[in-house]
């Protein structure tokens, strides 16, 4: 580990020598630094796990924080937590980077002249308390949602210091939905959707797998509902209604590219057909009779630009469905009539008897809730100069409020702005005083995602810098303002506060478990009589132009909060596979209209509110009259979120689409996003985009396969045709552990059809005496493409971030990438250097195969044979070993790998791309690769090795499930199974022996992969 690091490293944690160093160079940590007082629990070299809660979004998933020598090195899902049950999404995985972020404020900062300068806490607190005293009730607080305890206390504090008030601001708050529930059932709370029991899911564009209310949870339920093995008739059908084939939509059976804004009408039309076909509950039928009478299906079909037949077909299916779930529109489709739309959808849910089954209405939360119109009101107040002190925390309004609200100017009118951010962002850069907050890993806290599920946040990292938790800061302010003020908020620290709030529970048990999980059932609701008559019409759109501007939350960057986390920038967009930059999606026909635009051509998008120019991606997955731009890029502050990587400090990375949105709300005063038309003009410029998948056309090669449900039922399938079931997993379905024996037998006959492929000697797949042959199965019917595994892999294995320019040059280092294939593909494309998005993507029956690709640990590995120095070889337990320190970098292995899963260190990325203090989160069990070395996935061999130690000490073999890879662990849908193929009872062997769907990628090459993919199931269009 390089010299420079040591001092800080030791300052942080006394630990025995050994942390990240690069291969081939070993600058000795020449000192051995013991603890002064060694904590009981810490044994250097052994990881400790602490339960906590993820703070990235409101879903509040449970965490297990893996720490080594006192510093968190990875976040894993808490298996006991009811929300995520052991899985963790990409954003959650990446959030560990916040604590080790090079950008972080290291001390309080105060504005001197036009820039912020470090100061002391005492000074800062003194200044702030003074200002608040002066401003009195002209003090306001603007911030994101915090945990219940903090939230309640802050309200008290606001009162105590005599501030004007506090506004909670979340860009993506589901206010319309709450409003709708209130109107329909008289209960003001967001309904909770449980998809696991459903047999027909209709999503009106909520994108619940990426940006929905609880993506990890819903992904799991979605997979359960569609589990081909457990559910009859191939499990639930999924219809996606929306203008863009998003990541969620890619998992649908059918895509109805309805005109954006028409969702409410469609919902009612579908409901009408469904009820006509005898669907719904008795009460429901009666209840909605009146409003449905007004609905003219044919008219709706015309308005929504959806074939009448489709509406009728899906409607009938809806009527026939036993337990359907309809999901109301999410952010992307929140129009000015969002409340009505949500109401229509919820009404349909109720009429079809879903409420109480798949949809439950929880008791309303107490405590302050996000409110957009309050925010706007505050902005007006600021404009009038009636705000003296503004404290901003947990949000970045300068970035996420549309400029048309005039927030920026209003902020200029506020004499004293205080930011409690832990990392610089557009808002904190405008502050007069910055009081840096702890990161979630350093702080206490709690969360209550839904009634009864209380989840704890506990510090797992000694604060790296001189920061304080929000509550403690405010507490100090109160104290500084005088004993009387302090007395009104009686507590001695945030920790005490949390313990206090959890009084009555066994706090330590809760800490150990991660919280108290006693989910309360939803409240019984009845329809409010008057609720059914409401005006459901298409929303009006601002401005003119022949495109509707669709602004959807970034699948990884969400509302932009992820933009400064390198992993989220470098992980490709699940649909287009583009990293680091903004882009607009338009359909081929639209591109034609605009003068034959191609991938990478730069267009100018103009609305009433402004204009911006960005490159286009031309793909079939978008309506012709829609231009789709993701939210999240366009920051001007931050190491990775701004343009600094491309060498222009302060310049924006990509564009912030919010800049061109008008500041308008829906009927309920909630924030609306689907607002405006846009003019699109071709600038004639062209950009090379940093894309990670050159073609989504697999040209009929056996990379991502699919089986029609019918064939699956019949038990024969083209997947199996060339390829014996027993062979799906090497060694599966073969009796004695005499594993070698199987090879010739099963395999020989399996490949009988190819005279070119000889039976391969399976005994070479692992050492004859080895009890293990590690293998993996990946179920592409379950994989949603959410990319959680990718980020998990990055962090577990110290994989380098290479940055925009290097990705553009095709030097992406991910060991595990997710390939997205559109159908079987055809032989077109490839003549030029443009990526290929097959037209098939536009068809309404979705046939997208998502096939994660990682090292296949081949039994007959092409890479091994060509390495001159045996740097890669076949290990005893069947792994394809990669010995970094032996590699001389001929790169022959990578040439010869048909899967192209070997990545090469073109530069000393480890040195160049790990700014301090990021090295602190490096996994000490994995060598950091240096310049000129080949690297690749080895099934997290460090985990296997650790498990083997335990097993050896108890001299037994590693049990099934005792060890798993980072990717499998993070997967919300359990699409990835890892285990020992020699053990026929292991989960992986069972999964892989799936008779029909099992196949090996590119198996005609006879590389005998240890990774078995399970073909996607084509469930076809939904039928009544």
């Amino acid at each position, binding site marked *: *580990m*390089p*010299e*420079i690091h040591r001092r800080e490293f*030791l300052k942080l944690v*006394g630990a*025995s*020598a050994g*942390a*990240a*160093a*690069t291969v*081939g*160079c*070993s*600058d*000795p*940590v*020449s*000192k*051995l*630094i*013991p*603890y*002064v*007082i*060694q904590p009981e629990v810490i*044994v*250097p*070299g*052994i990881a400790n796990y602490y339960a906590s809660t993820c703070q990235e979004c409101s879903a509040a998933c449970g965490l297990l924080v893996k720490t080594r020598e006192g510093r968190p090195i990875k976040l894993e899902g808490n298996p006991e937590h009811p929300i995520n049950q052991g899985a963790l999404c990409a954003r959650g995985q990446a959030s560990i980077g916040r604590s080790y972020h090079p950008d972080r404020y290291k001390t309080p900062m105060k504005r001197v002249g036009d820039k912020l300068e470090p100061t002391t806490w005492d000074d800062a607190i003194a200044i702030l308390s003074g200002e608040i005293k002066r401003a009195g009730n002209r003090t306001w607080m603007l911030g994101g949602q915090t945990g219940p305890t903090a939230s309640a206390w802050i309200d008290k504090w606001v009162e105590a210091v005599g501030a004007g008030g506090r506004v909670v601001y979340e860009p993506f708050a589901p206010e319309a939905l709450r409003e709708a529930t209130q109107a329909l059932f008289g209960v003001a709370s967001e309904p909770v959707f449980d998809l696991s029991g459903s047999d027909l899911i209709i999503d009106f564009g909520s994108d619940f797998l990426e940006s929905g209310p609880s993506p990890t949870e819903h992904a799991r339920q979605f997979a359960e509902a569609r589990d081909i093995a457990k559910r009859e008739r191939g499990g639930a059908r999924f219809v996606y209604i929306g203008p863009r084939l998003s990541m969620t939509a890619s998992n649908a059976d059918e895509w109805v590219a309805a005109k954006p804004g028409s969702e409410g009408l469609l919902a009612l039309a579908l409901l009408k057909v469904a009820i006509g076909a005898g669907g719904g509950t008795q009460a429901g039928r009666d209840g909605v009779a009146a409003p449905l009478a007004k609905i003219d299906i044919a008219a709706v079909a015309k308005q929504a630009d959806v074939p009448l037949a489709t509406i009728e077909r899906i409607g009938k299916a809806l009527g026939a469905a036993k337990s359907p779930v309809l999901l109301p529109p999410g952010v992307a489709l929140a129009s000015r009539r969002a409340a009505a739309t949500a109401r229509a959808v919820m009404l349909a849910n109720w009429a079809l008897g879903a409420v109480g089954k798949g949809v439950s209405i929880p008791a309303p939360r107490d405590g302050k809730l996000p409110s957009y119109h309050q925010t706007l009101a505050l902005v007006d107040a600021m404009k009038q100069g009636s705000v003296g002190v503004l404290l901003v925390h947990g949000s970045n309004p300068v970035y996420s409020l549309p400029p048309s609200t005039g927030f920026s100017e209003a902020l200029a009118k506020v004499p004293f702005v205080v930011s409690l951010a832990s990392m610089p962002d557009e808002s904190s850069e405008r502050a007069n005083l910055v009081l840096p907050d702890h990161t979630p890993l350093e702080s206490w806290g709690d969360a209550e995602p839904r009634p009864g599920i209380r989840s704890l946040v506990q510090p797992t990292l000694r604060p790296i810098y001189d920061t304080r938790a929000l509550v403690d800061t405010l507490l100090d302010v109160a104290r500084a303002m005088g004993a009387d003020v302090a007395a009104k908020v009686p507590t001695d620290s945030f920790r005490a506060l949390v313990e206090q709030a959890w009084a009555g529970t066994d706090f330590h048990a809760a800490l150990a478990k991660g919280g108290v999980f006693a989910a309360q059932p939803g409240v019984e609701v009845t329809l409010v009589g008057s609720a059914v008559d409401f005006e459901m019409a298409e929303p009006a759109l601002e401005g003119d132009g022949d495109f509707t501007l669709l602004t959807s939350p970034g699948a990884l960057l969400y509302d932009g909060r992820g933009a400064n986390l390198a992993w989220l920038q470098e992980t490709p967009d699940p649909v287009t596979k583009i990293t680091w930059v903004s882009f607009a999606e338009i359909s081929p026909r639209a591109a034609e209209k605009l003068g034959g635009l191609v991938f990478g051509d730069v267009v100018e998008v103009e609305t009433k509110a402004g204009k911006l120019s960005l490159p286009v991606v031309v793909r079939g997955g978008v309506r012709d009259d829609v231009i789709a731009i993701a939210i999240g890029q366009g920051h001007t502050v931050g*190491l*990775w979120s701004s343009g*600094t*990587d491309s*060498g222009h400090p302060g310049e924006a990375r990509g564009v912030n689409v919010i800049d061109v949105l008008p500041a308008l709300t829906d009927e309920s005063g909630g924030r609306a996003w689907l607002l405006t038309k846009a003019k699109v003009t071709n600038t004639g410029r062209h950009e090379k985009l940093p894309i990670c998948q050159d073609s989504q056309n697999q040209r009929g090669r056996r990379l991502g396969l699919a089986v029609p449900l019918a064939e699956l039922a019949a038990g024969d399938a083209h997947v199996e045709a060339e390829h014996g079931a027993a062979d799906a997993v090497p060694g599966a379905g073969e009796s004695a552990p005499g594993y070698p024996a199987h090879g010739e037998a099963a395999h020989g006959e399996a490949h009988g059809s190819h005279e070119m492929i000889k039976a391969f000697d399976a005994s070479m797949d692992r050492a004859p005496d080895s009890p293990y042959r590690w293998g993996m199965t990946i179920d592409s019917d379950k994989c949603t493409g959410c990319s959680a595994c990718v980020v998990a892999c990055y962090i577990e294995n110290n994989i380098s971030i290479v*940055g925009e320019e290097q990705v553009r040059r095709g030097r992406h280092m991910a060991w595990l990438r997710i390939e997205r294939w559109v159908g079987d593909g055809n032989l077109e494309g490839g003549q030029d250097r443009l990526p290929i998005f097959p037209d098939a993507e536009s068809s309404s029956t979705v046939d997208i195969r998502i096939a994660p690709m990682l090292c296949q640990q081949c039994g007959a590995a092409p890479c091994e044979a060509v390495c001159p120095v045996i740097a890669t*070889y076949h*290990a*005893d*337990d069947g792994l394809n*070993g990669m*010995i*970094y*320190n032996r590699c001389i970098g001929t790169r022959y292995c990578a040439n010869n790998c048909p899967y192209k899963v070997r990545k090469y260190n073109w530069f000393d990325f480890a*040195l*160049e*791309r790990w*700014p301090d203090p990021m090295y602190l989160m490096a996994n000490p*069990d*994995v*060598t*950091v690769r*240096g310049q000129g070395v080949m690297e690749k996935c*080895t099934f997290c*061999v*460090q985990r296997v090795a650790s498990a083997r*130690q335990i097993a*050896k*000490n108890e001299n037994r073999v590693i049990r099934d499930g005792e060890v798993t890879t980072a990717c499998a662990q993070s997967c919300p849908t359990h699409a990835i199974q890892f285990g020992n193929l020699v053990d026929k009872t292991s989960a992986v062997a069972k999964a892989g022996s799936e008779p029909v769907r099992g196949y090996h990628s590119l198996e005609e090459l006879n590389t005998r992969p240890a990774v078995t993919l399970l073909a996607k199931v084509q469930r076809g269009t939904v039928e009544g």
Partner: protein
Amino acid sequence: MGPSIGGRFRVSPNEFMFRKASHLLARVRRRAVEVVLAAVIAAGLVFGLATPERVDAQAPAAPAAAPAGPRSSQKAYDAQTAASDPSTPGPVQPIPFSHALHAGEYKIECLYCHTGTDKSRAAGVPSVELCMGCHTHFGGDMEGVQTLKKYWDEQLPVPWNQIYRLPEHVKFRHNRHVSAGVDCQRCHGPIETMDKVYMTKDTIWWPWLLPSTKPEMGWCINCHRENQASQDCLTCHY
């Protein structure tokens, strides 16, 4: 951070070059260390032979204001003197701690101080607290222990000089070797006889007459072969 050759979120050029240089140096140093070490040992031996009788007389009498606790044995003083003698092989440690005294004379189990060595990949280095566990009670009259106390009072860790070190791409697991019954001396030499610890030379010869010296890879492999331990590369390199 700072400006740099394309892409700002790498280290600044000069820092980069410094690290790079330090790495290159390290490569050289790895060999150098051995040579120097050999030289030191040789020199040490010669010197040792040249001076027949090391004078132990100058062991200081107990200071006037002797701290609490019994006065330490002459043996202890001799050990301390030996441990602080720069002319003998091995670096002088911040505290003249003698393994010969603690492990040899007092027969304290290795694992008593080096806790966790049987549980973890890394060998535990005793915390100052652990040392103080005993030394609050005795040895207070020796300046070594007084130095220790100083560290304890200032709550600072003791910056021991490291003697045995493997490059980071070698994943050595102490606990495996302990539980396999390999005794510490197999790798660390007769530690219980060393006042000041140094790396003992141990060399094996391959059939084709090429030496492999501790702690080089060949040396490990040889032992692994003798004991039918795993020779799979992934056992130590990943």
